[in-house]
Each structure stands twice: as structure tokens, then as C-alpha cells.
């Protein structure tokens, strides 16, 4: 590693000591010259003097923060600062689901943030699902700092047994007005013909950092349907890697972001096609207002043996004002010839013709803009196959739109 590719990070250094193993990242975080992080600088994070969240015990959470939806029929699992809270969680997750808080387990991700997590995470939460008719799970991760900025490292493992089908909804939120750093690592393994629906909402506080790393491996015939929503935080990155481990596996990975103020949101995805006959599709949509910064980096890797791969990816983003920056880097890395791979990316502003069309029918400009933005994002939300969850995410976007003054007419 060149010196220009790292930034010193005292806090990472202290954590690295706990890890015991030498990694190239010992004491460092990725710098701006590191290709995977060029659009998401970590300078502010590195300069914030975080303390481990467990050390700031003076803040306790006794109930769910406002804005966390209650999902009927779903069993709730609550983490506060990365630790499992039995008192806030449901006692019964229904037949077939086992929740255990084990010692930290190994993660396959070698990313610097996953290593940071490994160095610090005290206990992991495992969700093991098997059998038919499983109850959906609603996982709520709450960040709560005290007087000092706090960092925590949730570690989550989800396994779905052969033929089983699980739905999990994740809400990542924080107490308002606090600076915290959530660094979750999620390991998901889907066995043969297993099926997972995972819907993640990241709506952190405007001062919060959230850098999530998720790795999902799918065995033969397994399928993943995922939707990720990013609604804010000072610096948010959702790093998702899907590994196809058996023939006939399929993944639909979709997402949306809606940014305002000085929010920074980064979707980084990797579709790792290592075996033949797998399908992946991605649709990501984003809108950016204020002085926000939206990033999409999506890589599709097709290994030499992964013939008959079908991989598609789309990213579209809209500017809602003059301030934001939107960067995207869709990437195809293909070593097999009998494949169908395509990606598309586009950025621009609200179509004037569409606006004119609505206004010519008597709709005021504010409402017209709002309608168009909602319609634009809905295209991604429509990919969610569970109607209740779809409604939930639609409401979240609607609330974001209302909270923003995006409706104010601009030239």
C-alpha cells in the first residue's frame, strides 16, 4: 500500500491491537487515493475522537425512537449500540428461528472496515432460520452516544437452511442530535434453494456515520431479494457483496437514496459471479438536494467459469438543486464469453416536459415536482415484492419529501 492510500487513524490503531493479527490496515483507514474509497473520503471520521460506545453507558435507551415503524406480525429484535437488548426485543420469534448471541464469528470480508469491526465487536448476533412458515423479523439498530462521540460495531449473521424462506426488515436509526459511528458487518449464507428477502432502511441522524459491510453468499437454487434505502446521515456507505456459490442462484438487489443538507450516501455493490447459470439484477435510484453527495459504485464480476451469467444493473439519479454532486462508477469485469451483461447510468434534473405536462393540467409546480420525484423513486421501491413493506418504504420516502422543501419552485 502506498502512503497516499491510507490515512492515519488513532482510533483504528487502538482497535487493531485487539485483533491480534497483522493486517495491512493496522491503524489506518482507506485514504482518498484508494480506488474503492475515492468518492467517499473518511477524513472527518478519522478526525472525530470516538470512544467505544460501551464506555458511554450514561445514555440508556428504554423505548424505540420515534419514526421506527411497528410492523404487524413481525418479531422485533433490537440492538442498542450494537448490543442485543432482550428487554426491548420480542421474546418469541416463532418456530424455526433461533436467535443467539455468540462470541464474535469470523467474517469473510477483508475490507478495512470489516477488520475494524472484527477487532472491536464483542458479541455477534446470529439468526438461524429453518423450516417453512417463518415469521418475519424486524431488526432495529439504535445508535446512542453520550456527551462524547461513540463508535459501535454490530456484528450480525443470518443463515437460512435449505428450502427455507425468511423475510427480514432492518431499521438503522439513532437518537437525535448525537454523533455516533455505526460500523455494522453482516454475514449472510443462503443454503440450497433458500430464499431471503432483506429490506434495509438507513435513516441515521444528520450527525451520524454509518459504514455498513454486508456479504451474502447464495448456494445453488437460492435467491435473494434485497432493497436498501438511504435517507441520511453525515456519512453513510452501504457496501454489499453478493457471492454466487451454486448454479441457478439469483439475486435482485435494489435501492434508493434521498439526500438533503450535507448528507453523503454511498452505495457500493459487488456481484460476484463465480459459478455458471446465475442471474443478478440491480436497480438503484437517487435524488439529491441541498449540498449532498450521492455515490453509486457497482461492480459486476464474472469469473472464467461463470458461463450463462445474466447480470444487469441500472443507476439513475436526479438533482433537486444546484448544490449536490452525484458520482457513479458502474463497472463490468468479465472473463467468460457466453454471458449477457449490461449496465446503465444516468444523471440529470427533473424533466421540464413532464413538469410542463402536469402544470398544464392545473397542478401547482410544488406538487408537480413532488409527484415526479416520488414517481421516480417509486420505480425502485416497486421492486419490493412484499406489499406491506413496499408501503412502509413508500411512506418513508413520502415523509422525506414532506420534510424537505423540495417542492419550492426552481427555475
Amino acid at each position, binding site marked *: 500500500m*502506498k502512503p497516499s492510500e491510507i490515512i492515519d487513524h488513532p482510533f483504528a490503531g487502538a482497535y487493531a491491537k485487539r485483533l491480534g493479527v497483522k493486517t495491512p490496515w493496522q491503524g489506518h483507514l482507506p485514504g482518498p487515493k484508494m*480506488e474503492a474509497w475515492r468518492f467517499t473520503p473518511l477524513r472527518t471520521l478519522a478526525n472525530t475522537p470516538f470512544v467505544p460506545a460501551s464506555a458511554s453507558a450514561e445514555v440508556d435507551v428504554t423505548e424505540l425512537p420515534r419514526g421506527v415503524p411497528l410492523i404487524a406480525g413481525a418479531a422485533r429484535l433490537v440492538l442498542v449500540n450494537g448490543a442485543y437488548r432482550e428487554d426491548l426485543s420480542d421474546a418469541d420469534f416463532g418456530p424455526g428461528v433461533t436467535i443467539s448471541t455468540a462470541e464474535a464469528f469470523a467474517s469473510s470480508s477483508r475490507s478495512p472496515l470489516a477488520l475494524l469491526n472484527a477487532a472491536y465487536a464483542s458479541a455477534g448476533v446470529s439468526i438461524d432460520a429453518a423450516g417453512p412458515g417463518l415469521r418475519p423479523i424486524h431488526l432495529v439498530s439504535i445508535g446512542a452516544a453520550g456527551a462524547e462521540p461513540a463508535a459501535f460495531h454490530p456484528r450480525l449473521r443470518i443463515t437460512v437452511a435449505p428450502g427455507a424462506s425468511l423475510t427480514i426488515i432492518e431499521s438503522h436509526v439513532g437518537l437525535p442530535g448525537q454523533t455516533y459511528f455505526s460500523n455494522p458487518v453482516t454475514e449472510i449464507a443462503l443454503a440450497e434453494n433458500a430464499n431471503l428477502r432483506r429490506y434495509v432502511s438507513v435513516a441515521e441522524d444528520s450527525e451520524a456515520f454509518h459504514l455498513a459491510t454486508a456479504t451474502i453468499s447464495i448456494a445453488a437454487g437460492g435467491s435473494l431479494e434485497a432493497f436498501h434505502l438511504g435517507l441520511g446521515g453525515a456519512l453513510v456507505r452501504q457496501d454489499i457483496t453478493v457471492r454466487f456459490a451454486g448454479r441457478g442462484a439469483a439475486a435482485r438487489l435494489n435501492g434508493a437514496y434521498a439526500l438533503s443538507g450535507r448528507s453523503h450516501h454511498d452505495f457500493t455493490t459487488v456481484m460476484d459471479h463465480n459459478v455458471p447459470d446465475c442471474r443478478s439484477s440491480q436497480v438503484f435510484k437517487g435524488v439529491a438536494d441541498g449540498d449532498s453527495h450521492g455515490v453509486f459504485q457497482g461492480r459486476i464480476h464474472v469469473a*472464467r467459469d461463470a*458461463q450463462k451469467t445474466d447480470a444487469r444493473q441500472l443507476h439513475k439519479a436526479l*438533482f*433537486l*438543486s*444546484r448544490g*449536490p*454532486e*452525484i*458520482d*457513479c*462508477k*458502474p*463497472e*463490468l*469485469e*468479465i*472473463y*467468460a*464469453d*457466453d*454471458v*449477457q*451483461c*449490461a*449496465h*446503465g*447510468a*444516468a*444523471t*440529470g*434534473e427533473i424533466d421540464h416536459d413532464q413538469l410542463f405536462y402536469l402544470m398544464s393540467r392545473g397542478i401547482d409546480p410544488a406538487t408537480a415536482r413532488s409527484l415526479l420525484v416520488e414517481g421516480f423513486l417509486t420505480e425502485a421501491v416497486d421492486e419490493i415484492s412484499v406489499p406491506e413493506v413496499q408501503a412502509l418504504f413508500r411512506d418513508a420516502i413520502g415523509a422525506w419529501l414532506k420534510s424537505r422543501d423540495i417542492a419550492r419552485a426552481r427555475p
Partner: protein
Amino acid sequence: MAATRETAAAVRDVEQYKYGFVTDIESDMAPLGLNEGIIRFISAKKGEPEWMLEWRLKAYRYWLTLADEEPGWAKLRFPKIDYQASYYYAAPKRKAALTSLDEVDPKLLETYKKLGIPLLEQQILAGVAVDAVFDSVSVATTYKKKLEQLGVIFAPFSEAVHKHPELVKKYLGSVVPYSDNFYATLNSAVFTDGSFVYIPKGLRCPMELSTYFRINEKNTGQFERTLIIADEGSYVSYLEGCTAPQRDENQLHAAVVELVALDDAEIKYSTVQNWYPGDADGKGGIYNFVTKRGACRGKNSKIMWTQVETGSAITWKYPSCILQGDNSVGEFYSVAITSNRQQADTGTKMIHLGRNTRSKIVSKGISAGHADNTYRGLVRIGAKADGARNYTQCDSLLIGSTCGAHTVPYVENRNPTAVTEHEATTSKISEDQLFYCRQRGMSQEEAVSLIVNGFCREVLQTLPMEFAVEAQKLVGISLEGSVG
């Protein structure tokens, strides 16, 4: 169909790299290696003024600080280059000053004939003025008089330094500064020759200007530098073709091309690059590390790059446009073909700074054998580039299951009124199309050549006529032996 038959014939005829021969001419060479002495040697050889030497030395001293900064981000693998193991100057010995083509060493002329550019014929028939670079020194410049009458300056770079120092001083390094990147900095220190073009105000250059580059002397890196300035309202089309003889060692080629288009000017720059690609096992071949960049300085200016990259063991090349002037236009059309063990990492950068600037990128990558072919491109829209527009299309074709095709576009947008669009696809040759061609009596190779030519059509069409024919042949030749 004439072109198709020609392509098919070329595929049949050419069994090997057909330009693999060495002209036996005694060279005037600098000692091996690179140091300040060598740079002074080159500068003295060229009889350069003091300011030019100073510029070279400034670049060299900066280059020394870049030891760790050799670009490593491209998807390329090659052993570390020993920059001290190369000769940085080689000029064919000349007996006396030449006044006409008749005095040019017949061996040199013979070489060009084998390359298919008979200078004499071209002078009469094609109306193309050729500034032929043989290794490092331009040996013959044709049609010069006629161009001079129009006020066009088309001269070897070393001559321009003497005759037009004010223009060279003003524009040299203004698009690609000496500190730009590792290879451009090296070039700035050791460049030996190249072409200099100035098109005066309001002139539409009546003929296509062309330079053929040739690497000849063993173990010589070729570092040429081209500077083209199109003054207000002018137009020029410039052709560049490259072939090199067969060698076992890898040879380094680090060129710099700078284009400047002022108000309402247009530059069309076409390249057919066919350096020696190495043999089937990846032995030998040219390392082609080239920095090409054009600045659309003036309003309504336009720069159009077209490249057909079939040669070189390694291609590292990103012809770019800086769209400074309002309403300026940048276009990039590329066909990159890699087979055997070739590696190409090529693309473009479109930097939108002015209002209503437009750019279009069409890239076609074809990968066969054990080759890797990467499109890498950047589209950046500055905060002030209101109404900017970009359209990018990258298509890759894979032939065989041991090659790779990669697409790495960067799209950075800071202006809400700008629209950027990027599309990329990767697939193999359609079985249906192959079947259709075979059914009509074409051989497998003819069929592939036809289909690939069709795949590249959009790009090949933008080439000037003379080049388009050669390029179509090359497409067929390049894939020869890698099909079926």
C-alpha cells in the same frame, strides 16, 4: 461488399505480423540509460535553444520525484520497466541536408512502401502531406510548400522550436503540463521529435495531414510529441498511423499529443495503431503509454478523436477533451482489439467546464485469445457547465472463453442542468449471425471478420477514407488465428 471481400482476402493472405522487418541503417545513438547528461545530449543534438533545454530538465527533475508514482491503477500486468536499460535517442544517419524526396535514403522509402505508404504516390494521388517520423527524426516532409503558401505550419517538432519559438513556447505543455503524469513527464524530458501543426485563422486545411510513426532501432523507446493548434475558425484533419518491426524485447513508447482548438475551430484526430503486439505467447511487443489530450479553448470549438487500436502488447491511452469554451464539443470513437496475450486499458476523459458543452463517447472493445480489454473513461461535469450533455456507449465483444472484457466508467456530475447517460453491454458473437454467414458459404474467419466489422461500423465510419479501408483490413488481421 468490396470492403468485405478485401477484409476476407486480407485475413487469408496475412499469416503473420506483416510489418515485421528491420531496416538496416546505421544509427546515431545516445549512450544507454537516462540522466541529465542524456537530456543535454538530446537537446544538443537537436541544437535546441536554452529555454527548451530548461523545460526538459525541469521535467526530468520532477520525474525523479515520481519514482513511486508510476500509474498502477490500470488493469494491466507487466514486469517493472527499467528506465535505465533503454536508449533515449536514435537518429538515422544522414549524409547531407535533403531538399527533395529523391535524396531520401532509398532503404527508408522501401520501408514505407512495405507499410503501404508510398510517399511519391501519395504526393501525386492522395493529396496527403506526410511528415514521416523514422525512429526519432523526421526524414521527409512532403507538400510543405503548398501548405506554407496557405499559412499552415506542418513541420517536425524540432524545426518548429527554431522557426516558431513563440508558438511553441505559448502552447507547449499548456494542455498536458510537464507534471501531468509519470509517462508524460518522462516524455517532456526526453522527447526527440514529433509533429507541429498550426492552422491559421479561418482556414479549412485543404488536405489531410498525416504522420506515420515507426520504431526501428533495437531497444529504443520512442518519445514523440505532437502539438496541433487550430486558430479561430479553422479546421484540420490529422491522421496518425503506427507500425513497428518485430522484436523480442518489449519496447517503450510514451508519446504526448496536445491539441488546442480556439473559437469555432475544429480538429479531427484519427489514429490507427498497429505496433507490434508480441507473439502468441506474449513475448515481445510494444508498451504503448500515451497521453493524448485536446483543449477546446474557444467557444463552439470541436475536437474529435477516433482511434483503432489493434497493436501493442500493452495499450495505456486515454485521448481526452477539456471542454472549456461554451458550446464546445468533444467526441471519442474507439475500436480496441486485443488477441493472444495483448492487454489494453483505454478510454477517454471528457471534462465539461463551459456551458452547453457536449460530448459523445462510442467505444467498441473486442477481446480474443488470452487478452484483456478494458474501457476506462471519465465524464466530469463541472458546477458551471450548465446544459452540458454527455452520451456514452461501450460495447464489448468476447471471442473465446479465456479472454476478458471490462468496463470502468466514472461519471461525476456537479451540475443539475447537465444530463449524462452511460450504457454498456458485453456479449459474445451471436451464433445466429455466424450461422447465417456460414450458411452462405463464408469460412468461420470470414464470418467473424464480417460480424466484427459490423460491430465496429459506427466507429470505423468516422475515419477518413484512406484509413477506413486499412482499418477494416486490420480488424480482420488482428483476430486472425484466434477464431474457431
